[in-house]
């Protein structure tokens, strides 16, 4: 079973990214769960989405052994890292998380900066993160994640989102 945690602040689109990842897994015939926790802030604060992928039915709906932990803010990094193990892989937005901790396996990518530089707005950061996650985890194929993203975003933005996925996928 793959256990993936995506975290950041409200408004960064991480819950959406988690949903798309789970949808992609279902498209490939797998079992998938997406759950989240968040506070009252629509913007800011911290929120996390968790995605579990397996071939059999998944009973407990939360991550127990985070294999992959994506943190897009330092606040989320600090708040949701209590259960990281030496096996966990931490992926951080290197400009927003100055102090990743909890495991030796750290992948640093300037996710939000890439979104601004390559796509003109920070809006695509979560999709870049998604491409990056798919590359690191191999949870689903690149083709499937493209299909899942295309299904979810407004049709006028599909091209940019596909580009964002590619940027993320090729960043590691």
């Amino acid at each position, binding site marked *: 079973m793959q256990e993936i945690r995506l975290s950041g602040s409200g408004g960064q689109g991480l819950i959406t990214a988690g949903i798309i990842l789970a949808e992609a897994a279902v498209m490939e015939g797998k079992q*998938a*769960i997406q759950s989240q926790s*968040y506070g009252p802030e629509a913007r800011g604060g911290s929120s996390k989405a968790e995605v579990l992928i397996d071939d059999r039915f998944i*009973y407990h*709906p939360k991550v*127990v052994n985070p294999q992959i932990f994506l943190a897009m803010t330092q606040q989320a990094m600090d708040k949701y890292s209590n259960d990281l193990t030496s096996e966990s892989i931490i992926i951080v937005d290197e400009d927003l998380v100055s102090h990743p901790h909890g495991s030796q396996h750290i992948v640093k990518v300037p996710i939000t900066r890439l979104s601004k530089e390559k796509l003109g707005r920070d809006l695509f950061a979560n999709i870049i993160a998604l491409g990056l996650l798919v590359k690191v985890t191999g949870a689903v194929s690149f083709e499937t994640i493209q299909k899942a993203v295309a299904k979810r975003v407004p049709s006028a933005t599909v091209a940019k989102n596909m580009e964002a996925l590619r940027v993320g996928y090729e960043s590691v």
Partner: protein
Amino acid sequence: MSEVKLMQGNEACAEGAIAAGVRFFGGYPITPSTEIAEYMAVNLPKVGGTFIQMEDEIAGIGVILGASLAGKKALTATSGPGFSLKQELIGYAAIAEIPAVIVNVQRMGPSTGQPTSPAQADIMQARWGTHGDHPMIALSPWTVREAFDVAVKAVNYAERFRTPVIILMDEVVGHLRERVDLPAAHEIQVYPRRVPDKTKAEGYKAYEPMDDLVPNPANFGTGFRIHCTGLVHDETGFPSGSPSVTEKTIKRLHEKIMRVQEEITHYDEFFMDDAEIAVVAFGGTARTAYAAVETARKSGQKVGMIRMMTIWPFADKVIRDLAKKVRKILVPEMNYGQYVYEVERAAAGQARVVSLPKYNAEVFTPDEIQQAIERLAAEVEK
């Protein structure tokens, strides 16, 4: 239908209600149930149904009772604070025998509590929240697919027994997205709105019970000119102050549901064959309990699990039989201890019943339940 997709518990519940024939939703926004309202807002008009956001929670249940009396299968959805507000009219639906489904996606309370955190602390309120004597049917799904199935069941029971039915979801299942294989439309059994058994000329009485103790009050606007009231009433539907009518009514309201108690008590058994300890759980907690029990079994513990879907009426016979079979019963629930008291009562001392309450607004971990099982197993019996 019959398709595989990722779906949210709340959405599946709404979809199940629509599949069962619900064509009216009235409610008020409240976390973590709002997705049900939003799903209904989009999808009810597509099937000719009506969605309305009312001015408050009480109006939310009032409007669906009106719609139900006028012939529409109806549903409302809320969480703790709204569930508290709706209680008077839930009792109204009970005594006036109006089919209606009330979804409570439980969150941490009391009062405003923690709107985005899960809990299972409205168990007793679902049974006793409204004043006076009344029975109650309450169902709790544990998977997203079951949220769909429970919605269908709830709507059918509401219609079949002419009663309010509560769906006790928790935020875990309500907000969970998981893969579902929804049934095809032809696979879904839908209980139709009951109709009068005679004409007015033949002596029709709106609240005359049929053989199943359930009356057939006619839909408004179908020529029967019935009277509906929350006052105690006789078979004509008109208020009665007679002690014998009052007693008969209260008794019948209870018996119409209790006579089918076993039929409507739904549960699953896992790993029970040679179990000496049983975990009794429901809703989101049952998922975690299953993971814990499965692991405990692998390490040699003789532990099994009963997963309750019907919360009310309480599963007296299931627990009574269980208490004769196992020595110890563990009841994990996301509250300070509520369902466990009923388990204890029904076990009647035949087995040791231990509460495992969790009330910090977080879900159980499999470890927590597994450790409790081990502690219980290690207990020396006197």
